């Protein structure tokens, strides 16, 4: 399979001399769900946010389908972001807009600000949004304001917003951390199936090892700003987990 996203020698330090990421090398292929696991503060979130440049890297290269993401600015950056879908931990919906408007936000990169202001989106975008609402089971909620939804519903809308972009890769930053166990499973199922149906890779930050094992095709374990495990879920042993999370009491 062809490599879609290739990260080489990526470092990031917020304060000089205190690196959060210490040289990450990762390749992502055009199919499959990759789960990045690791304890909090280990740089998972920084890594995933650097890919679409919500955070700027300090050094290294991010090659996305032949496009170097690490140094682009302005219009080129916006055009690259349109191709990358992102799902957030706390959903990050625009609370006072309706569900439909939140979905259409995913098309803002393609619509002129004037038309966006007048809510004039191409009919195929609206049709796509209605389709996605069906997929996520919220067909009746199009007019509801985002702040009236439950956590699980919001995260579905968050995923649908990312899918509206017709992305070539889907990133998810701790999409289940604010949700209960049952809803978490549903969200992971949705991410997995959408990745398969749209034929795009999915990269998920997650700290729940069981969820990662259940849904991921590949697991990347991080600790202290480095990748310490990279392989299929069935190869992830307790020794690896000790290395990733430290200690062992929590394993029993």
């Amino acid at each position: 399979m062809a490599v879609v996203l290739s990260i080489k020698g990526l470092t990031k330090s917020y304060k000089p001399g205190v690196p959060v990421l210490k040289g990450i090398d990762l390749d992502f292929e055009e199919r499959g769900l990759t789960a990045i696991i690791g304890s909090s503060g280990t740089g998972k979130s920084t890594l995933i946010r650097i890919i679409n440049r919500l955070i700027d890297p300090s050094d290294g290269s991010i090659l996305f389908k032949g496009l170097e993401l690490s140094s682009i600015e302005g219009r080129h950056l916006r055009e690259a972001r349109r191709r990358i879908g992102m799902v957030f931990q706390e959903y990050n919906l625009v609370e006072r807009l309706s569900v439909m408007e939140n979905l259409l936000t995913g098309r803002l990169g393609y619509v002129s600000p004037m038309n966006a202001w007048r809510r004039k989106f191409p009919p195929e975008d609206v049709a796509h949004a209605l389709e996605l609402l069906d997929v996520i089971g919220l067909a009746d909620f199009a007019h509801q304001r985002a702040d009236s939804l439950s956590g699980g519903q919001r995260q579905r809308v968050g995923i649908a917003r990312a899918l509206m972009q017709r992305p070539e890769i889907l990133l998810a930053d701790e999409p289940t951390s604010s949700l209960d166990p049952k809803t978490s499973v549903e969200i992971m199922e949705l991410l997995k199936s959408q990745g398969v149906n749209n034929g795009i890779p999915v990269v998920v930050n997650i700290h729940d090892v069981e969820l990662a094992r259940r849904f991921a095709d590949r697991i990347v374990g991080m600790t202290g700003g480095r990748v310490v495990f990279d392989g299929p879920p069935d190869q992830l042993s307790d020794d690896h987990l000790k290395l990733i999370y430290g200690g062992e009491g929590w394993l029993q």
Partner: protein
Amino acid sequence: MTQPGAQAFPRIPAGRRQPFHSSWQVKLLALLVAAYAVYALGQLDFSYDRFIRGLDNGARFLSRMFPPSYKNWDQLLTGFIESMEIAVLATFFGVLLSLPIAILGARNLMPAWATWPARLIVTLCRAFNPVIVAIVFIKAVGFGALAGVLALVVASIGFVGKLFMEAIEEISMKQIEAVRATGAPFLSVVTYGVLPQVIGRLVGFCTYQLDANLRNSTMVGIVGAGGIGGALFAAFQRFEYDFVLAILITIIAVVLLGEFASNYVKRIFHV
């Protein structure tokens, strides 16, 4: 801060303040304020004698105010229409100019080279009373409503601009981040990420400013910048106190009506 619960015990440890007992600092402050008041009253040439004479005057003044006279109602009407026109135009253009200035001045959206000039403009607009600004504009564009409109545009930028800027600085950056992550251009980030979060408060500021401009438009006329204030000042100079009262009653009524109208507008925008 001492908790009230901690003070409710009967025995108060040494050094603890008595419950509900004002400390000596508060007493000293009150004494100083009182001393100041006496001193300042002296400075202002305030005497009991003068006060009584004033009350006498006031009684005569009040009796000349009643009953209010509406016989110059046409003058009242033209003055009020002009005041309202001044208020409408000043609010419209003031808000229109405030929006870009507030967005430029918001430190969470813009770099420092954009924020500090925007903030300087807003501070300057706020520093001077509309009447002083009106006087300056009268010198620039002559007597009349235009000077009043310009002065109140400046006041509106100072008020709406400042509050709107603060409102933008308080928004949730998470929602902005998500809109940015879709590759939206800056203006769309503003319309989809920023505006929905502040539109309710903005509508509130605008209706408040319309209200304030209506009140202030009665004032700028006193220095010659158009509106009902001119008629009011003229009535004072001609000692037509019954007409003065008629104007004052109308001002209060119009301001009250404005308050009802702004509540209605807020309902339309679901605030």
